[in-house]
């Protein structure tokens, strides 16, 4: 049979979870990570990352709006997807996605953004004209009191929502990990470490994404990059990355040392079909190199210009590495037979509902949403430069 080595159960030959399902945990990971970065400022009072606070929230929202689309497009019957809300099967990890998603979208992210922007929305409502004024008027939800006392209450409520939001962000992505980690039939997925690894890799990717977005948007606005801010983000990125890498290595070492019945099959796969995506992209280029670069910035005093270049390079490589990790989990988990006697091949289609073009479109869509959100709710005051003493 073409593309098959050894023996596959006859129904296993073609993969059912495609590149769109790779995109899904990648996107939800960015949401969770971006929110955690925002919470650094709000809850943990890390003032240095303040310039990224609102951008991180809007990034999280832009990506969260796109998160269910890959799932929806992948379903055989997308028109029935509402059944997950109406008649959820409570023992199914997947059934809870709808609720976790809604909770996170409405109770955490949208509420937090609204509270944080309320004063701005009221001001925009008062200063704009035409359809925009109507829009901002609707967005105030009738709450136009921006007295110092009202704003103080906003601040308190916002803080509480962020505190609730942190475990919710963990829940959102930990749950995505659980969807895979709880499949006992698949030894590549089945591990209690998977949800934890997913959470930390989510934080890594989200923090890196906001760091890159902050640098890109500042550059586009022709303003100087707040180096103290990016230094601080990079420091957090480095420490979270160390934990993430440690967990992934623990998983790997555990598998190698235990060498259970699936090990030879999985080991063969890593050395052949997943060699490029796992060893080259995920471990070397996507983890070892950015970790080494970030480590360098922590121990050697480098000029600001060099540090910025390092942050861009390591941030971009990190994103590639985390995407490769999602690929290796989702696609890798379907390349071998559950008989452990053979392997199949996955070829990405180009112009299909689950093909490459659709994946690219869905990857770009959050940026379109972010652009609209930034235009509607500017995360920065024009001309604002956060000047802080350099580290």
């Amino acid at each position, binding site marked *: 049979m073409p593309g098959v080595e050894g*023996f*596959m*159960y*006859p*129904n*296993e030959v073609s993969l*059912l*979870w495609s590149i769109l399902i790779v995109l899904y945990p990648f996107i939800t990971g960015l949401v969770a990570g971006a929110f955690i970065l925002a919470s650094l400022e709000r809850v943990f009072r890390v003032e240095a990352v303040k310039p990224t606070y609102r951008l991180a929230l809007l990034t999280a929202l832009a990506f969260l709006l796109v998160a269910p689309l890959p*799932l929806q497009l*992948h*379903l*055989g*019957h*997308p028109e*029935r*997807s509402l*059944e*997950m809300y109406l*008649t*959820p*099967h409570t*023992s*199914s*990890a*997947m*059934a809870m*996605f709808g609720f976790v998603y809604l909770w996170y979208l409405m109770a955490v992210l949208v509420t937090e953004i609204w509270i944080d922007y309320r004063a701005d929305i009221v001001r925009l409502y008062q200063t704009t004209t035409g359809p925009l004024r109507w829009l901002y008027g609707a967005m105030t939800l009738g709450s136009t009191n921006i007295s110092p006392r009202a704003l103080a209450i906003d601040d308190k409520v916002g803080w509480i929502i962020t505190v609730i939001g942190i475990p919710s962000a963990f829940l959102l992505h930990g749950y995505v990990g659980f*969807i895979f980690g*709880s*499949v*006992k*039939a*698949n030894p590549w997925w089945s591990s209690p470490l998977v949800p934890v690894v997913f959470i930390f890799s989510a934080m890594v990717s989200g923090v890196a994404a906001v760091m890159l977005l902050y640098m890109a948007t500042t550059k586009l606005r022709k303003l100087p990059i707040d180096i103290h801010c990016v230094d601080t983000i990079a420091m957090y990125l480095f420490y979270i990355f160390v934990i993430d890498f440690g967990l992934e290595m623990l998983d790997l070492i555990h598998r190698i040392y235990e060498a259970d019945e699936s090990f*030879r099959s999985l080991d063969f796969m890593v050395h052949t079909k997943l060699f490029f995506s796992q060893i080259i992209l995920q471990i070397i280029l996507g983890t070892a190199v950015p970790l080494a670069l970030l480590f360098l910035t922590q121990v050697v005093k480098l000029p600001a210009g060099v540090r910025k270049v390092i942050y861009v390079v390591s941030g971009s490589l990190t994103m590639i590495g985390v995407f490769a990790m999602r690929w290796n989990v989702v696609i890798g*988990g*379907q390349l071998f*037979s*559950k*008989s*452990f*006697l053979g392997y199949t091949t996955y070829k990405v289609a180009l112009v299909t509902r689950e093909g490459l073009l659709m994946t690219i479109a869905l990857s770009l869509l959050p940026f379109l949403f972010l652009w609209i959100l930034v235009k509607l709710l500017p995360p920065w005051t024009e001309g604002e430069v956060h000047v802080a003493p350099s580290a």
Partner: protein
Amino acid sequence: MTINRRHFMILMPAAAIAWQSVLAGTPEESPNYKTSEHWWGMLMDISKCIGCGNCVRACQKENDVPDGFFRTWVERYHVTDYNLENPQVISPDGGKEGFPAVEEDAGKYFFVPKLCNHCADSPCTQVCPVGATFVSPDGVVLVDQKYCLGCAYCVQACPYGCRYIHPEKHVADKCTLCYHRITKGLTTACCENCPTGARQLADLKNPNDPIHAFLKTHKVQVLKPQMATRPKVFYNELDGSVR
């Protein structure tokens, strides 16, 4: 237009014929069948399977199984010496058209028929986000195809590779243990067509079913017992190399 007695007499037989074909499209009723009185499984006697593929063909015909997908299939194992870890396994087109000739004196060859194990603790039904797949009260794992989203989570969760997404219906599909037959007192299409009796439908709740005597006197095994899914397809003379 008025219908007089003459017209009516002409129309009656036509209507009766038409009604027959309407009824043909609806499932037959089985008024005497009580789900609570049955607990279905199957017995596979590996020593009797000759790999003829009759079961696979019968299943495909009976259940309109699309080409390239299988509700049941047959694997041929080739094991040389003690190396149970590395059996050579083939199942060309699910064993539908039989198997190529074997080499003489090159170790042992045997056939393993496979189908859904209708697990009592089925991981596939556990993960279904809407409960479209379920274990019936008489122990058969079924899919409500009018309700299934086609997310394929159940396919991922089945340790035995027994499920697939139907290429035209875009929903999960699998062995129903010929539920439309067994609820009417018939056996499954695969058992019916097995020339050697290697497959036998078993009602584990029926004290008179021969399965009970067989299980008491033979050493049987289930597939992947480590998965703790409580499969109800029992294999006689199962080799340790089978997975």
